[in-house]
């Protein structure tokens, strides 16, 4: 496809204008069509999933809070530190639109921002890294045409998803002005991160680096606004919220105030970031990054010369990133639980009413946090074990498998790393939740109870490894898509199964929900079953891997 388009650019009319910008953007239209052709399916899937979620959540919340009295009752208890920290300060919680924002706004804004970051990098820095941009730029193509086309297509995509979300809300009979403000706030958030991703793509030399840098900015923006919302009074966040683009978009307060002016901040930031990206691109060579490439050691250390050492070295950045992220989130979960515990043990009648079965609700919430934490660890495990597939698809196995190491031993090293590190992560993050929670309630020994309940999810992590190996062996080309899809299904069933009204036997038997939760009676059987499944999947996977042909890169 690349070559055919490259050929087409040759037949484009030569630039006759002497205007520098026109020259620099020659071929823009062709590039827009080229990028659309390579990405339309991805964009369509994102659009359908995101807009579909709006419909699903409105529908489920309408069922959950059918009468105005239900919604008013909910509004009285909605403003908890947990809600504030995770999804933002609730406002207008007595309306269906307000409830939609509490349940979905943050998810939508973050998901769309991630989509735009990945898409811009995929078509920008990743193409440059693969050398395909060189092919295009050698044709009759203006210097900026490709990047401008890239940013234009995905800006349009962000706006389209915003419009589709608004349309979905309007179709569910939510107020039109509120729905439009909400849609605009999604698009505005995504536009800022489109700009961030464009700049990141100029700074780093690799697509992984660009995604990492842009995602880090997104993560910091999220945490800054979380702090601002937790520090807020009533429905108003602290001034810190103005330091985060996500905070700006939140302040549009759809379905309540419908402020459009904070969204202008987002659009302004996006424009500035894109201008900066363009200026950076002008000042650098094709293929280069502004963060210089460092030289490395001329020989491999003894540790690097072992398979496990090599695996750890190759995943070093990812392991550190995930570990820091997971522990920070664990302490965050623990901190939120502390604040909730204060609320629940307080004398307010609402808290007393909400408490119901006293400690059980608290334990239920903490158990939910532990499972969510285990799901995060599982995402790390999936990404780490996926190295088995990735090495083969990138052609790196050819030299390694023709060395004196069996494929089973080779794969085992790539399984041991996520297996061992997931155990460490579960233990540390579980203890972190327990410690931060225990510190608040004056029971420091809580850490041990949480550590135990968290480590109980280790078999689930092992099952993820087993399934990844099985897929990498049996369906090497589709493995990445299939394993991540399975993971997404597991997350949705485990965390939101109730929301979709699925039967209990499904909700309670995912590899994560089957594990006894904190506060529930501990039984060892589910752990044994999940471990056995992990061993079977991994065993079959290794056997197939040993006995099949290597797939060509």
């Amino acid at each position, binding site marked *: 496809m690349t070559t055919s388009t490259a050929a087409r650019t040759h037949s484009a009319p030569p630039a006759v204008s002497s205007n520098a910008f026109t020259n620099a953007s020659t071929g823009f239209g062709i590039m827009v069509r080229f990028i659309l052709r390579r990405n339309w399916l991805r964009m369509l899937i994102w659009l359908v999933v995101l807009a579909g979620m709006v419909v699903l959540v409105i529908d489920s919340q309408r069922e959950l809070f059918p009468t105005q009295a239900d919604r008013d009752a909910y509004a009285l208890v909605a403003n908890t530190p947990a809600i504030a920290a995770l999804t933002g300060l609730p406002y207008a919680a007595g309306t269906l639109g307000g409830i939609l924002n509490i349940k979905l706004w943050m998810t939508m804004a973050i998901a769309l921002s991630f989509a735009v970051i990945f898409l811009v990098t995929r078509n920008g820095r990743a193409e440059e*890294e693969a050398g395909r941009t060189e092919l295009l730029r050698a044709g009759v193509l203006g210097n900026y045409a490709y990047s401008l086309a890239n940013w234009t297509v995905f800006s349009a995509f962000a706006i389209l998803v915003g419009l589709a979300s608004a349309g979905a809300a309007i179709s569910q009979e939510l107020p039109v002005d509120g729905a439009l403000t909400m849609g605009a706030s999604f698009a505005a958030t995504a536009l800022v991160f489109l700009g961030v991703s464009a700049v990141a793509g100029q700074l780093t030399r690799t697509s992984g680096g660009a995604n990492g840098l842009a995602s880090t900015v997104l993560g910091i923006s999220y945490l800054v606004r979380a702090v601002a919302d937790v520090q807020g009074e009533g429905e108003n966040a602290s001034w810190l919220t103005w330091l985060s683009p996500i905070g700006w978009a939140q302040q549009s307060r759809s379905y309540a105030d419908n402020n459009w002016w904070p969204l202008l901040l987002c659009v302004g930031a996006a424009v500035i970031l894109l201008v900066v990206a363009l200026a950076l691109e002008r000042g650098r060579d094709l293929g280069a990054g502004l963060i210089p490439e460092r*030289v490395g050691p*001329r020989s*491999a250390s003894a540790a690097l010369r072992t398979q496990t050492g*090599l695996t750890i070295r190759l995943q070093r950045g990812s392991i550190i990133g995930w570990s820091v992220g997971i522990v920070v989130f664990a302490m965050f979960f623990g901190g939120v639980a502390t604040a909730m515990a204060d609320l629940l043990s307080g004398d307010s009648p609402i808290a007393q009413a909400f408490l119901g079965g006293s400690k059980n609700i608290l334990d239920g919430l903490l158990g939910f946090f532990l499972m969510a934490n285990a799901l995060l660890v599982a995402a790390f495990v999936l990404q780490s074990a996926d190295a088995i597939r990735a090495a083969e698809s990138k052609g790196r196995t*050819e030299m390694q498998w*023709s060395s004196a190491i069996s494929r089973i031993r080779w794969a085992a090293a790539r399984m041991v790393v996520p297996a061992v590190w997931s155990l460490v992560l579960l233990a540390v993050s579980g203890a972190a939740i327990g410690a931060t929670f225990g510190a608040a309630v004056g029971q420091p020994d809580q850490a041990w109870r949480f550590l135990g309940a968290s480590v109980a999810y280790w078999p689930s992590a092992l099952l993820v490894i087993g399934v990844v190996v099985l897929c990498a062996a049996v369906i090497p080309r589709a493995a990445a898509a299939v394993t991540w899809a399975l993971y997404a299904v597991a997350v949705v069933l485990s965390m939101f199964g109730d929301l979709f009204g699925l039967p209990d036997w499904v909700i309670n038997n995912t590899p994560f929900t089957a594990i006894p939760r904190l506060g529930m009676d501990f039984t060892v059987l589910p752990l044994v079953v999940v471990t056995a499944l992990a061993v079977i999947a991994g065993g079959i996977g290794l056997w197939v891997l040993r*006995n099949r042909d290597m797939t060509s890169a």
Partner: protein
Amino acid sequence: MTTSNAVNVEGLEKNFGSTRALDGLNLTIETGTVAGFLGPNGSGKTTTIRILLGLLKADGGHATLLGGDPWKDAVELHRRIAYVAGDVTLWPSLTGGQAIDILGSLRGDLDRIRVEQFLQRFDLDPTKKARSYSKGNRQKVGLVAAFASRAELLILDEPTNGLDPLMEGVFTECVAEAKAEGRSVLLSSHVFAEVEKLCDTVTIIRDGRTVESGTLAELRHLQRSTITLTLDGDPSSLETVGGVHDFVADGGHATFTVDSAALPAVLAAIAPLKPRELVSTPPSLEELFLRHYGVHPVDGAGSEAPQAEAAQSEAAQR
């Protein structure tokens, strides 16, 4: 099957779905020799090599590598061989030096002194990250790792892809040294000059089948030499001599080809004409090769197959 052969492949077959990649391929490498492996893109060279490396499993035929089964004994055999792919793929975040060490350690014979020598000969900076290497530099990483090893058999799949002529010269030296050390080499290549200079035997394949195989001298023997001469008289009488083909005369210049067997008779016929100049050129490898893929590809394959088998059995008897 003789134990003195580093590689013995007979009737090798491999299918990818409905595509027949190898269709009864034969290949023999005597221990201590350099074997050229020629064929156009898609003819099955890389598939054959991957079967020898135990990366693919053959569907039929026999393959023996250093006396073992390339699929079952893969790990043990891999200690004794070194492989350079046509497109060396490295870990982007590691340096070339690290990659060489890792490959050497996997084989278990990492020798830093030798690595350092070959790094200098190939003029490779081992402190750069693999992702910043050009294609040629990535090939150098593979070549340094292979030549620095103590492997008995070097399997090189179009190894000079992307190397500059200077480095091709270094490569030629290194292969010659490896041979002098008693190692065997399988060299798949598109560079005829390289193969002519280095290889003791040549195997030419087409559509997954061996069409020519033997020493260069043997292959040449089956082909005609080209003779160009200049004389004062009229050369046209030579046209009717038995064994002379493709005769072209232009005044006192004549060019024609001669069957090897008819050479003495033709020379006897030339002598009375008192030529002032005579140049006899044996067929180049390129000509041998192109004969199989040239104007009459189907005829070529059909008529050459028996020759190939004859050469094969000859090689096996030695």
